[in-house]
């Protein structure tokens, strides 16, 4: 029997039992659609986090004070409080030729006011290099001027939301704002940066690092952000940072250096596993759909006993009957899978309208896996009914 004839015969059989066919297609479609939607969700989360990290800048090393590790032996004689990272440390690191840009960072919180408006915001103290390291953008004016790290200046750059809330439609540039007891002149406004790793970059005030030190009366830095010239130099630079700071801190390794890539890789792994897990959960519904196919095909074999007997009388061999019934479950699964894909994509599109920032994209492997799983479950669960049909005694079947 030719493959086109098999498909034609099966399609006629499927359209002959419309309700049954519709319900089976629906079951399979729901299974496949849920695989598409759930893996899209997982993949979307992964892409979203990856994007967030990438927006930090590339080839980024983050130096923070303190060392997280477990050590054995007797407690140290001296107090084990980690030494602060200072501007001198930052300057020492700047000497390396692999360091393209370096931004020391102080983070604090203070009320910012202009005329009668006041708002509590995050204060970032840094240098002109922060602009490049964090890949920021400006909507007005300019960023911090390239000053020596230890030189304070009464200038500041406002986040987009902060500028909008404080000044409304009033001109921003050149205005003086009050930060606690200090005053600074607004020289720039950031672009609409949105959220970046938990910090709302719209609601910040950025000032020179020395000014921030004076404001918070603190010498220690919160972080040092280092942009390395090329990806290949990351490891070497990381070693250089640790060695330099150890030397400067009396031989004690009391800083942690995180590379953005390592962080990204970890999140990528975790969220990738999440996608697989969600896909796996959704695949269970494909299994259920497969069992439904088996159930209904068994009923179909019982209903169509005399048809099977007739086909045998007309010269169909056992393997042909097997093939016809297997083709029927396979075709049901495939058609169901196609409808499911369409429904899944439609669902993704609808979700995308509601959450435009979140990338709903089903990974290609999940699409293939859903189709192949659907087909396999149709074939495997269709095998028993098909065998039962093929093994029917034609004499009994004809009279059945």
């Amino acid at each position, binding site marked *: 029997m*030719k493959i086109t004839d098999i498909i034609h015969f099966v399609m006629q059989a499927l359209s002959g039992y419309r309700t049954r066919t519709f319900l089976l297609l629906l079951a399979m479609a729901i299974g496949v659609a849920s695989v598409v939607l759930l893996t899209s969700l997982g993949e979307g989360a992964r892409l979203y986090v990856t994007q967030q990290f990438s927006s930090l800048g590339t080839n980024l090393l983050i130096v923070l004070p303190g060392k997280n590790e477990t050590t054995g032996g007797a407690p140290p004689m001296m107090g084990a409080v980690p030494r602060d990272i200072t501007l001198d440390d930052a300057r020492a690191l700047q000497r390396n030729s692999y360091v393209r840009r370096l931004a020391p960072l102080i983070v604090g919180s203070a009320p910012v006011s202009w005329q009668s408006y006041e708002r509590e915001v995050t204060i970032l103290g840094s240098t002109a290099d922060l602009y490049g390291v964090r890949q920021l953008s400006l909507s007005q004016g300019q960023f911090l001027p390239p000053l020596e790290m230890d030189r304070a200046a009464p200038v500041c750059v406002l986040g987009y939301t902060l500028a909008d809330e404080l000044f409304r439609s009033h001109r921003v540039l050149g205005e003086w704002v009050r930060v606690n007891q200090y005053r600074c002149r607004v020289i720039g406004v950031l672009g609409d940066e949105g959220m970046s790793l938990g910090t709302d970059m719209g609601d910040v005030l950025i000032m020179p690092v020395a000014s921030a030190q004076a404001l918070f009366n603190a010498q220690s830095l919160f972080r040092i952000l280092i942009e390395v010239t090329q990806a290949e130099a990351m490891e070497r630079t990381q070693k250089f940072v640790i060695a330099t700071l150890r030397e400067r801190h009396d031989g004690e390794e009391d800083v942690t250096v995180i590379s953005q890539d390592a962080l990204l890789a970890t999140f990528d792994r975790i969220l990738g596993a999440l996608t697989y897990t969600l896909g796996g959960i959704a695949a269970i519904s494909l299994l259920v759909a497969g069992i439904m196919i088996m159930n209904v095909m068994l009923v179909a074999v019982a209903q169509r006993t005399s048809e099977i007997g007739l086909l045998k009388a007309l010269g169909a*061999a056992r393997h*042909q009957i097997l093939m016809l019934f297997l083709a029927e479950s396979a075709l049901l699964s495939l058609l169901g899978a196609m409808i499911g894909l369409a429904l899944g994509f439609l669902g993704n599109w609808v979700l995308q309208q509601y959450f435009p920032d979140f990338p709903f994209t089903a990974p290609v492997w999940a699409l293939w896996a859903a189709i192949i799983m659907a087909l396999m479950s149709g074939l495997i669960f269709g095998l028993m009914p098909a065998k039962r049909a093929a093994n029917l005694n034609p004499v009994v079947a004809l009279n059945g």
Partner: protein
Amino acid sequence: MIELKNASRTFHVGDALVHGLDDVTLHIAAGEYISIMGPSGSGKSTLLNIIGILDALDSGEYILDGKHVNSLNESHQAQLRRDKIGFVFQSFHLLPRLTAAENIALPLTLAGVDKKDREQRVAEVVAALDLTDRAHHRPDQLSGGQRQRVAIARAVVTRPRVLLADEPTGNLDFASGMEVMKVLEDLNKQGITLLMVTHDANLGARAQRTIRMLDGKVLA
């Protein structure tokens, strides 16, 4: 053409053993027209099923057109059935979702014949059995006589050597029955071997030879 030697077939019905065929020896020549008669349960249908290779012997031998049927495997038996034998049933056994032409083409489809050849051969039998204007109707749009003519067309579309008819007029009124008998007898005149199971003595008498059965045995 058809040869049965000491053919036996028994069935278990509850605890009892029923002889469908009991040591039957039979020879049927090509082109014969034979009626098979006997009371219910005498083994008529079993004999037809064995000859049609729908059922297998417990003991004895069956030779069809020189081939020892018992020694063939399932798929060769299916092929032999497809090539040499046509069935006509009392209840027509047409697939309700297919048109008359599609029903007729079914054995050719199963045999893997090309669509073009298939259409040509279907057109030939449809014309020969005077079904041209009914070819695209479904079974529920046909009369009983027309349905049986479609079933006969399906049985002969593969040009078999043997036509097995089990009470072919059993579900038809007298006029339709006569019409169907004429079609079958015309086919026999063209050379096909015709075996017909019937209860009707008048119909049985039309055959060249009558095989009478009782309790699984062929009466002399």
